C-alpha cells in the first residue's frame, strides 16, 4: 500500500478561528476513505487543502506524491475533485459540461475523446440525458455528472466533498457502488460525509470533530471497542421515552436513543449490564446485545451523550387538548402551475405523537409541512390543528402551533434577548406574561450568559436551544420542526431530542421532517413521501418489517426506504 495523501501536522486558521488543529493522517491508494464529521468539523477545509486549493497554515500535505503548496499545478493534474453541489454549469448540457472539463484537463488529445465520454456516460448511466441542461437534472443525476467530470482525467486521487447531500437514498446507493468499483484501478477515493451510517461502509475513516482528528483507521476497529456495550431494549409497550430518560440519567449509561419500538443503549466501558436489566424489567422490556454502530462509537469517543433530564419538561404544564387527533391533513394538494408538489395527502397525527415526514429532496415534504402550519395555501384539501380549520380559523390554529424553521431562522443582528422578545411579541404574548415567559426560557435553556450576544456567535447547541425556546414561548400544543438537526454533531442532536422527548411526555405533539434515516426511527410513525404522494405510513418497525425478505431479514430504515420507493416506481410503471 502506498500513501496517496500524506497529511503531516496540518493546522489551518482563518483569522482567529482555528478550522483544523494539528491533523496527522495518511490516505491509502486503492481504498475508499471516509472523511467523517458534523458540519463545521473541518472536512471541507481539509478537502480543499488536499485538492491544492488552499494552503495549510502549518504543516504540509502531499497529494499523489506532490506538495500541495509547492507543486499545486501537478496536484491539480493528478486529482479529481468534486466540490459540494458538484461544480456543474447549470446552463450547460451534460455533454457540454463533460467537454469543458475534458478540455480543462487536457483529456482526449492522444486518446479518442468520444470513447472517454462514452465510457463515462455509460459508467454513470447518463447516456439518455446527454443533451439535457445540467440544471434540469435531478440531484442524483447531477451528482453522477459531477463524478464523471471529476473522473475525466483518470485521477490518482478522487476527492468527493459531501457527494450525498441532497441526493435521494436510491441514487446514493448507486453512487456508492460506482465509487467502490473505481478502487480496483488503484485509485484513492476520499468521500466526505456527515452521515455516520455512510462511515461504516468505508474501508477507512478519518473522524473529525471540531477541527480535531478523533479517530483514523477502519471503522470496524472503532466499533469493535464497543463490543458487548450496545444493547437494544425491546418489548416496552408503554412509556419508552420515559424509560429512555431514566436510562440516560444512570451513571453507567453512555448513550441512548429511541430506535423504532425499542431503545438503544450504550454502556460506559466499566458499565454494569445488570442495572440496565433491572430498568428493562420495570418497564416489562427484554434486553438483547446488538452489534455496535459507528454512531455509538462516535458518541463514546466524545465522552458520552447528555443526560435524560430536561428542565423544560418540568416547567411546561401538561398540554390538555380535548381531542385525540392533534393535526389532520385532509386531501392536501398543492400545485405550482402545472407542477404538483403535493398530491392528495391525508393523515392524522395523534395527540402526543412524534410524527415524521420522510422523503427525498423534492418529494413534497416541505410543501406539505408548510401547508400544515399555514405558511402555504393548499390548492385543494384542508388541514386542521387541534380542531381549528386552517382555512377558516387560521389565527386560532396558529396560536396552537410552534414552528422551528430549517437552519433555526434566528435574527443575527438582534441579540439573544431581543430574539426572545421579538418572538414573544410575534406570538402575541402580553406584557406581564411576556416578561415571565422570557425569563422562564432564559432560565430553562441556560441562556443567561449569552443574552447580549448575537445568535450567530453562539455555539451550535445553544443556537438550537434558542430556536427551540423561541418556538415554545407561547406554549403551543403542536410543534413543527423542519429538518431540525441537519448537519449538527450527534451530541447536540441527542440533546435536542432529549428536550423533544420530554415535551412529548408532556403531551406536546411533534411533526418533524428529516433526511436522517436514524432520526426517522425516533418517530412514533413515519409518513414516506415520494413524487408528491404519500406512499407509506406506519411505525418505523412496521415499515422495516414490510420490506423484509428472505435474503434481508433485518433491513435498515434506509433499506426499507429504498425498497418502498422502488415498489412505488414499479407500481407507477405498471399503471402507465
Amino acid at each position, binding site marked *: 500500500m502506498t500513501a496517496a495523501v500524506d497529511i503531516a501536522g496540518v493546522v489551518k486558521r482563518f483569522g482567529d478561528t482555528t478550522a483544523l488543529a494539528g491533523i496527522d493522517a495518511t490516505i491509502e491508494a486503492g481504498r475508499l476513505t471516509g472523511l467523517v464529521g458534523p458540519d463545521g468539523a473541518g472536512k471541507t477545509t481539509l478537502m*480543499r487543502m488536499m*485538492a*491544492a*486549493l*488552499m*494552503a495549510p497554515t502549518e504543516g504540509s500535505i502531499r497529494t499523489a506524491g506532490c506538495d500541495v503548496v509547492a507543486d*499545486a*499545478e*501537478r496536484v*491539480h*493534474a*493528478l*486529482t479529481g*475533485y*468534486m*466540490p*459540494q*453541489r*458538484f*461544480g*456543474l*454549469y*447549470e*446552463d*450547460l448540457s451534460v455533454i*457540454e459540461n463533460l*467537454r*469543458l*472539463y475534458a*478540455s*480543462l*484537463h*487536457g483529456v482526449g*488529445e492522444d486518446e479518442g475523446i468520444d470513447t472517454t465520454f462514452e465510457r463515462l456516460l455509460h459508467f454513470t448511466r447518463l447516456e439518455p440525458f446527454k443533451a439535457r*441542461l445540467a440544471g434540469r437534472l435531478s440531484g442524483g443525476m447531477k451528482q453522477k455528472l459531477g463524478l464523471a*467530470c471529476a473522473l475525466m*482525467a*483518470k485521477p*490518482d486521487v478522487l476527492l468527493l466533498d459531501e457527494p450525498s447531500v441532497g441526493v435521494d437514498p436510491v441514487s446514493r446507493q448507486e453512487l456508492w457502488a460506482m465509487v467502490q468499483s473505481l478502487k480496483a484501478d*488503484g485509485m484513492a477515493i476520499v468521500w466526505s460525509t456527515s452521515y455516520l451510517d455512510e462511515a461504516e461502509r468505508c474501508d477507512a475513516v478519518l473522524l473529525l470533530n471540531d477541527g480535531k482528528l478523533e479517530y483514523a483507521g477502519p471503522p470496524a476497529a472503532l466499533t469493535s471497542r464497543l463490543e458487548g456495550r450496545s444493547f437494544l431494549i425491546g418489548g416496552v409497550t408503554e412509556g419508552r421515552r420515559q424509560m429512555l430518560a431514566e436510562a440516560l440519567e444512570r451513571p453507567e449509561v453512555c448513550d441512548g436513543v429511541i430506535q423504532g419500538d425499542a431503545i438503544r443503549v450504550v454502556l460506559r466501558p466499566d458499565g454494569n449490564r445488570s442495572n440496565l436489566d433491572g430498568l428493562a424489567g420495570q418497564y416489562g422490556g427484554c434486553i438483547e446485545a446488538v452489534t455496535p454502530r459507528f454512531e455509538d462509537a462516535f458518541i463514546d469517543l466524545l465522552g458520552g451523550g447528555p443526560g435524560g433530564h430536561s428542565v423544560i419538561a418540568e416547567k411546561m404544564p401538561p398540554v390538555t387538548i380535548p381531542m385525540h387527533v392533534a393535526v389532520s391533513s385532509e386531501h392536501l394538494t398543492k400545485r405550482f402551475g402545472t407542477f404538483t408538489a403535493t398530491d392528495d395527502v391525508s393523515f392524522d397525527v395523534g395527540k402526543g405523537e412524534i410524527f415524521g415526514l420522510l422523503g427525498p429532496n423534492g418529494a413534497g415534504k416541505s410543501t406539505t409541512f408548510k401547508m400544515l402550519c399555514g405558511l402555504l395555501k393548499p390548492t385543494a384539501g384542508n388541514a386542521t390543528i387541534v380542531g381549528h380549520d386552517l382555512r377558516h380559523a387560521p389565527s386560532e390554529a396558529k396560536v396552537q402551533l410552534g414552528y422551528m424553521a430549517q437552519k433555526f431562522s434566528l435574527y443575527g443582528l438582534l441579540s439573544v434577548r431581543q430574539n426572545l422578545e421579538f418572538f414573544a411579541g410575534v406570538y402575541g404574548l402580553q406584557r406581564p406574561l411576556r416578561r415571565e415567559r422570557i425569563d422562564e426560557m432564559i432560565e430553562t435553556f441556560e441562556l443567561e450568559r449569552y443574552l447580549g450576544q448575537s445568535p450567530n456567535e453562539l455555539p451550535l447547541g445553544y443556537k438550537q436551544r434558542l430556536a427551540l425556546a423561541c418556538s415554545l414561548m407561547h406554549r403551543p400544543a403542536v410543534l413543527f420542526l423542519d429538518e431540525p438537526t441537519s448537519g449538527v454533531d450527534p451530541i447536540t442532536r441527542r440533546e435536542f431530542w432529549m428536550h423533544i422527548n420530554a415535551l412529548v411526555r408532556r403531551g406536546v405533539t411533534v411533526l418533524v421532517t428529516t433526511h436522517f434515516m436514524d432520526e426517522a426511527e425516533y418517530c412514533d410513525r413515519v409518513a414516506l413521501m415520494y413524487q408528491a404522494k404519500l406512499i407509506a405510513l406506519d411505525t418505523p418497525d412496521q415499515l422495516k418489517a414490510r420490506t423484509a425478505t428472505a435474503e434481508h431479514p433485518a433491513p435498515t430504515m434506509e433499506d426499507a426506504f429504498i425498497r418502498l420507493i422502488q415498489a412505488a416506481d414499479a407500481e407507477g410503471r405498471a399503471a402507465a
Partner: protein
Amino acid sequence: MSSKPATAGFSARRLSALVRKESLQVVRDPSAMLIAFALPVLLLFLFAYAVSLDVKGVRLGVVLESDTAAAQSLAAAFAATRYFEILPARDRREVAPRLVASEIRGFVVIPQDFERRLRSRTEPLIQVVTDGSQPNTANFVAGYAEGVVSSWLVARGGARNAGVMPLRIEPRFWFNPEIETRRFLIPGAIAIVMTMIGTMLTALVVAREWERGTMEAVMSTPAGIVEILAGKLAPYFGLGIVATLGCALISILLFDVPLRGSWAALLLLSCSFLVPALGQGLLISTLARNQFVAAQIALLSGFLPALLLSGFIFEIDSMPAIIRVVTYIIPARHFVSSLQTVFLAGNVWSVFLPSILAMLAIGSVFLGITARKSRKSLDT
C-alpha cells in the same frame, strides 16, 4: 499509473473551452441577455425622453391687468411660444393658489401701468413669479419669460421704428445647434450602458461562479489563473462591443444623433473603455464572492460615478475643484467626453488620445491589482 500531460504554461485549448463555456452561458442566461440587450435599449429610451433638460410646454399663468393693445400683444406673445402653456387670468389672486398647488410653474403679471412703464424704458415691464422649490424649472421660466419680453420688444421696435436696436445679439451654438439635450445625453448614455455590461455583468458572473461552487471545480483542474480570467474577459469584451454598436445604431437611426466622427474611432474608444470597465468588474469579483455584494459594489463604484461624475448629466466644469480632480480617475469621464466628441464634433484626435491613454492607464491599474490578488487558491 498513466503518465500525465504537463500542465505548466498556457493552453489555447483550455482558453477556448472556457470562452465557449462562458459564451454559451451568456446566450442561455436570460438575466445576462437582459442586462446586455434589453437594459441598454431601455436606458437609451429613458435618457432620450425622460431625462430631457429642455423645457417645453411649461404651464404658466399670465395675469393681464392692463387692457391696452400693447399689453394684449405681449400676452399673445407668451401664448405663441412653444415653451409655455398659458393659463390666462385677470387677477393674480386667481393664479397664486395654483402656483402653491404646483398646478403651474410660475406666472407673469402685466401690470396696470404697463403703457407707462413701456414708455419710461427704465422700470421693469412685468413681474415674474416662479416656483422656487424647483430651482431648475424656475430658472428656465424666468429666463424664457425674459426672452419672450425682449423678442417682443425687438419685434415691436422693428415694426415701429427700425434702428432703435442698433446691436442684435444672436447666439450661435456649435455642435448642437438646437441645444437639444438629447444630442449630448445619448452618447453619454452609451457610457452608462457599457459600465453596466463591463463592470456589473462581469462582477456578477464571477461572483455567481463562486456561489455555485463552479469556480472551485475549475480551479481544481490544470487550467491556469490567466486562462480562467481571460476566459471570463473575452466574451464580455465581445458582448460590450456588440452592445455599443447596437446603441450607436439606435442613437443614429432613432434619435437622430449624428455620428460626425468615424466608426473606427468609435470602436477604438469603446475597446479602450472596456479595459477599465472589465478590469473593475474583475477586481470587484475578487473582493466579493457573492452576487448581492458584487452588485452593490458595482453599483456604488461603477454605475453611480459613471452617472454623476462623468459629465454625462452634470457638467464637470461647474463642480468644485476637488471633485473635478476626482473625476479624472473615473474611466467613464474620459469615455463620455470622447463619445460626445466623436458623435457631435468628429474625429478630434487631440481629445481622443489623452482619453484613450487615461482609460488604458486606469484599466491597467485595475487589472494589475486583480492579477496580484487572484491566485489559484480559495484562501482569501
